[in-house]
């Protein structure tokens, strides 16, 4: 053993073997088959060799072997011994010293508790023996590593050394140039400066760091060491902000750099001061406040880049914040903060009052930045600036200019609110609150939308805060103005903004509510304002107002003889109201009695009066009400859910109108009988909404009976709307059924019956189609929860695509299964949707569809498969399709060639996505893609399809120019007639597509 080790060592020292030999030695040491003492003894003759190279390599070898050993392998005696030896080697020949340093670096990194006294010894020897500047980069790195390790692991020893360590480190670090070493040196310097008392060496320490500022470093190409300029900048910045002692040296340097010609230097100076100011505090920056402010002012007014301006402002904020005296504001009226704020104001006042908008706004924003830093600065600055700003906003005639000033005023409004808790600040601006509000009110009344919305926001911010004493009348008049605006604003985003402004103010000032609701209710009754209902919904802030508004809407819903469309409108408002307050427990406690039963009752009462002409309107109304019940289903408490379910199941199963609160003489209804008139069967939509939302575990009573009835109803009800609703009930129940035997118990009879209904009497195709629709819904329900039995459903559905009669519907159904929807089966609705179910479904069934397509004999059946594939692919992320694209693209193209396919639009979407993500797949097919797309763009009946085709054509221009060149002229020519399409939206796309191709043509010209 010993012999083999000796050979390995000899080989390594002679340079004839590599690291493997060392690894073997290390593993022997680790397995204890070789003692550390033996290893060192083995090295003996090399360590004492007369040849310095051999001595050096042998010293290095210790480190390399240690590197392969686990940390803390050596005992503290061994460490001490090795370290003492290495320290001695530091004073050896200059070719041995670096190896000793490297080994020391490894040794210190591997044991986190050096024996006491040893760290000091190591440091002192290094400071005495090592001339760091004369070493190579990697050896200097080793020096810093040793120091860093000692700082980290044995800081108490370093503390004992005090100034000796500091000056030693400064000498070692002096004139370091390599970024790799600088990173570690900065790290040490930051640590030393923040933990040790620098004392007499503060200036030296700062000088050795300050000479690097501002950092200018461009990493070599491909940056092998991964160090960027940004890393260095951040490391140096941390050093600067490490201790308050640097302030007297650092701030003058930064101020000087703030006037540098280099933008990056100025940027860095501002950022560094922003970070240092909180550390340096008032004493650190006070002396230089004047020059800092003037540098920032210069930078902001120069307005070179937005980023620079923002950075400079952030800097001035940090400095003023640092300047804020700790003691009470009142005591220091003539404080430096106040004086320099006033000085700044006087300096820039010619811009504030001038006619140059850009400069003016920059100056205002600078003043605002200063004001935002502390209450003291706010008190000094705001009263000076506000009158000027108000005047500027008022005097402008051009909207864009006015808007710029308005933005500044809104900014000040926010500051006013921010400091409103401070009594002194609030007092200083109190006289201006009125005029500011007046300005906003005036702008709210103008015609420019930008001004209105900004003014509304700011007004609501001011009104929310009660300290300003904005009177009730004023507040009401502002609110009325906003509410009126909201009622008549067509633009949704703009309207939402007004609504939220009104809502926010009312939350703080509920007393203003009656006036606003009165105004809104009157507007609803008169029917003049299109969006008055939304405003009324927005006024609701608590349970009382909820009850009030809710009752108002319910009264309208329950009124006999109202137009069904109006009822739908009010129901929609109730839905909106409910959905906005689902998270309010007080509201949710009252909804069962106040909202759920009254709505159900009204709709059931109305159902007797529905005429055959109203079918369309009725389905709209029922959809809205079903959504209300869906929300109730997922948001009510368990007790309430059970109560509502009991009532509903009694009503639907037994026709018991008392259960839902109707009086005794109400005629008996049988909504779950397939043969009932449509007015009754459609009521099933209410049950559908509730089942879709509810936690199924809470609906115990007669659940199976409801399931069976709904299933039978879904198979045989002839009214389309009722039939779909029933399908959804069955599917929801299957999707939500708890894991275990119950689901099989539910499914088995269902599968049998629906399969036979689909296949049996092909003469009655309507009933077959109903069974198919139910089957599709069940497939979706099962696939969504990724149930093991889902494959039974989906494989049967895929096989039905080949059926000549049911094929088209089944193909559409496949698309429906993977269609995203947030209205059913989602987790929020207590359903179960597993992630990636679509991808799974696609992967499992795509192959069968392809096979089906290839084996299909008749053209119609082939078309069914194509439609299925197109629909399926259009709902899937491209990532999933990518591996199949080479097979898919020809199929998609042939589906485009089939005239009249309704899947065109979807196919084009997929194709368009394919073009942008995988150009190589499309390029070989260009000679059929381009003419096909042109044909569709010109001829297709549907405008959506034409638009998609044009989008696709535009996407094509991203392909390689060489491949497109043959088609350029033709596309430009044939798109000419499309510019005269009868639909404006198509023309718009055509213009874009043609422009893209024309620019291609121009680019390819020599």
């Amino acid at each position, binding site marked *: 053993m010993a012999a083999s080790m000796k050979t390995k060592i000899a080989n390594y020292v002679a340079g004839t073997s590599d690291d493997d030999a060392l690894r073997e030695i290390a593993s022997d040491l680790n397995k204890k088959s070789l003692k550390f003492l033996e290893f060192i003894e083995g090295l003996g003759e090399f360590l004492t060799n007369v040849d310095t190279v051999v001595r050096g390599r042998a010293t290095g070898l210790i480190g390399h072997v240690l590197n392969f050993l686990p940390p803390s392998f050596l005992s503290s005696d061994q460490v001490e011994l090795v370290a003492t030896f290495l320290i001695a080697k530091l004073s050896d020949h200059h070719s041995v010293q670096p190896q000793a340093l490297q080994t020391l670096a490894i040794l210190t990194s591997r044991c986190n508790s050096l024996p006491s006294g040893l760290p000091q010894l190591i440091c002192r020897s290094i400071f005495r023996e090592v001339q760091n500047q004369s070493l190579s980069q990697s050896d200097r790195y080793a020096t810093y590593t040793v120091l860093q390790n000692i700082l980290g692991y044995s800081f108490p020893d370093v503390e004992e050394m005090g100034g000796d360590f500091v000056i030693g480190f400064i000498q070692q670090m002096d004139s370091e140039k390599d970024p790799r070493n600088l990173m570690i040196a900065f790290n040490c310097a930051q640590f030393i400066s923040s933990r040790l008392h620098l004392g007499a060496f503060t200036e030296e320490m700062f000088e050795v760091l300050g000479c690097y500022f501002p950092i200018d470093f461009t990493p070599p190409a491909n940056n092998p060491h991964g160090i960027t300029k940004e890393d260095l900048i951040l490391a140096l910045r941390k050093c600067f902000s490490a201790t308050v002692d640097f302030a007297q040296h650092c701030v003058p340097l930064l101020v000087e750099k703030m006037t540098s010609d280099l933008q990056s230097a100025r940027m860095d100076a501002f950022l560094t001061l922003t970070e240092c100011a909180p550390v340096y505090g008032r004493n650190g920056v006070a002396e230089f406040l004047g020059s800092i402010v003037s540098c920032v002012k210069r930078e902001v007014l120069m307005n070179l880049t937005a980023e620079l301006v923002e950075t400079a402002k952030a800097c001035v904020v940090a400095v003023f914040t640092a300047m804020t005296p700790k003691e009470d504001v009142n005591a220091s009226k003539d404080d430096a903060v106040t004086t320099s704020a006033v000085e700044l104001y006087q300096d820039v006042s010619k811009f504030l009052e001038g006619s140059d908008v850009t400069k003016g706004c920059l100056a205002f924003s600078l003043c605002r930045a200063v004001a935002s830093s502390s209450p003291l600065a706010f008190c000094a600055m705001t009263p000076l600036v506000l009158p000027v700003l108000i005047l500027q906003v008022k005097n402008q005639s051009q909207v*864009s200019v006015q808007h710029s000033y308005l933005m500044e005023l809104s900014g000040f409004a926010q500051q006013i609110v921010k400091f409103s808790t401070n009594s002194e600040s609030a007092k200083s601006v109190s006289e201006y609150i009125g005029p500011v509000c007046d300005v906003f009110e005036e702008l709210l009344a103008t015609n420019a939308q930008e001004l209105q919305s900004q003014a509304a926001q700011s007004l609501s911010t001011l009104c929310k805060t009660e300290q300003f004493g904005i009177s009730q009348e004023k507040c009401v008049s502002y609110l009325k103005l906003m509410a009126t605006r909201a009622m008549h604003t067509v633009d949704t985003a703009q309207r939402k903004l007004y609504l939220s402004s009104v809502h926010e103010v009312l939350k703080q000032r509920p007393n203003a509510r009656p006036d606003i609701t009165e105004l809104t209710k009157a507007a609803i009754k008169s029917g003049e304002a299109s969006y008055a209902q939304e405003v009324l919904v927005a006024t609701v802030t608590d349970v009382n107002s909820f009850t009030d508004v809710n009752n108002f809407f319910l009264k309208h819903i329950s009124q006999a003889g109202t137009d069904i469309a109006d009822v739908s409108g009010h129901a929609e408002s109730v839905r909106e109201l409910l959905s906005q307050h689902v998270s309010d427990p007080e509201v949710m406690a009252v909804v069962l009695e106040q909202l759920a039963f009254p709505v159900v009752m009204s709709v059931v009462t109305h159902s007797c009066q529905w005429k055959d002409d109203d079918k369309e309107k009725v389905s709209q109304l029922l959809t809205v009400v079903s959504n209300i019940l869906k929300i109730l289903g997922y948001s009510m408490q368990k007790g309430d859910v059970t109560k509502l379910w009991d009532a509903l199941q009694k009503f639907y199963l037994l026709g018991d109108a008392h259960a839902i609160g109707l009086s005794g003489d109400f005629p008996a209804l049988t909504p779950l009988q397939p043969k009932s008139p449509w007015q009754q069967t459609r009521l099933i939509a209410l049950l559908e909404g509730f089942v879709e939302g509810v936690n199924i575990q809470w609906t115990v009573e007669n659940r199976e009976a409801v399931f069976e009835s709904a299933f039978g109803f879904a198979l045989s009800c002839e009214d389309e709307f009722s039939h779909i609703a029933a399908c959804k009930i069955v599917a929801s129940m299957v999707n939500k059924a708890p894991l275990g035997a119950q689901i099989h118990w539910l499914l088995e009879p269902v599968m049998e019956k629906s399969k036979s209904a689909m296949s049996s009497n092909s003469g009655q195709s309507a009933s077959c189609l109903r069974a198919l629709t139910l089957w599709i819904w069940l497939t979706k329900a099962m696939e969504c929860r990724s149930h093991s039995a889902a494959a039974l459903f989906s494989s049967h559905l895929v096989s039905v695509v080949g059926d000549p009669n049911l094929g088209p519907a089944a193909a559409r159904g496949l698309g429906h299964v993977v269609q995203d929807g947030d209205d059913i089966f989602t987790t929020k609705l207590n359903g179960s949707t597993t992630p990636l179910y679509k991808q799974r479904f696609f992967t499992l069934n795509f192959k069968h569809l392809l096979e089906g397509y290839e084996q299909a004999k008749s053209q119609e059946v082939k078309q069914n498969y194509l439609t299925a594939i197109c629909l399926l692919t259009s709902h899937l992320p491209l990532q999933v399709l990518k591996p199949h694209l080479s097979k898919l693209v020809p199929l998609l193209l042939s589906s485009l060639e089939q005239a009249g396919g309704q899947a065109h639009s979807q196919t084009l979407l997929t194709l368009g996505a394919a073009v942008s993500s995988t150009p190589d797949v499309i390029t070989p097919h260009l000679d059929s893609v381009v003419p096909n797309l042109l044909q569709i763009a010109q001829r297709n009946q*549907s405008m959506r399809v034409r638009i998609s085709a044009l989008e696709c054509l535009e996407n094509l221009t991203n392909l390689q120019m060489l491949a497109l060149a043959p088609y350029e002229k033709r596309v430009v020519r044939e798109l000419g007639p499309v*510019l*005269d399409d*009868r639909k*404006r*939206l198509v023309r718009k796309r055509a*213009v874009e597509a043609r*422009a893209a191709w024309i620019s291609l043509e121009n680019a390819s*010209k020599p």
Partner: protein
Amino acid sequence: MVSLDNANPVVFLRRKERHVLPEEEDDDVTDKFDSREVFDLIRVINDPEHPLTLEELNVVEESNVKVDDDANAVYILFTPTIPHCSMATLIGLSIRVKLLRALPSRFKVDVKISPGTHDSEHAVNKQLADKERVAAALENSHLLEVVNQCLVRRATG
């Protein structure tokens, strides 16, 4: 740096995108060309010397665009930012080329300077009305490149 004709122009707000009306979504209704549609085509053209659109400089306005779909005619007046603007011809040419590419060929397009807003109004109008001169200008590859620069759609915020 080449000095600009108008170094500090007044910037106007951009219009919002046109609202899509229900009848525009309806496949059976025929949408006629109207002035807003043509205005939408030309308002995005870039000014040759500023990073702004013609709309932002108020060079083109919707009220100065007249479209008669049945008579196949489009009249456009544009207003240079200053009376001695040397770019007026180029702006006019850009508008012409844009419409040449984006309008059906059945339309006859007239592009003119608003009366009294430019020193050499008649000369420019004459140049823009002369089909052959326009065609010849587009043969000039350098000029075409400048025009294309104006027609490239900027990413607008």
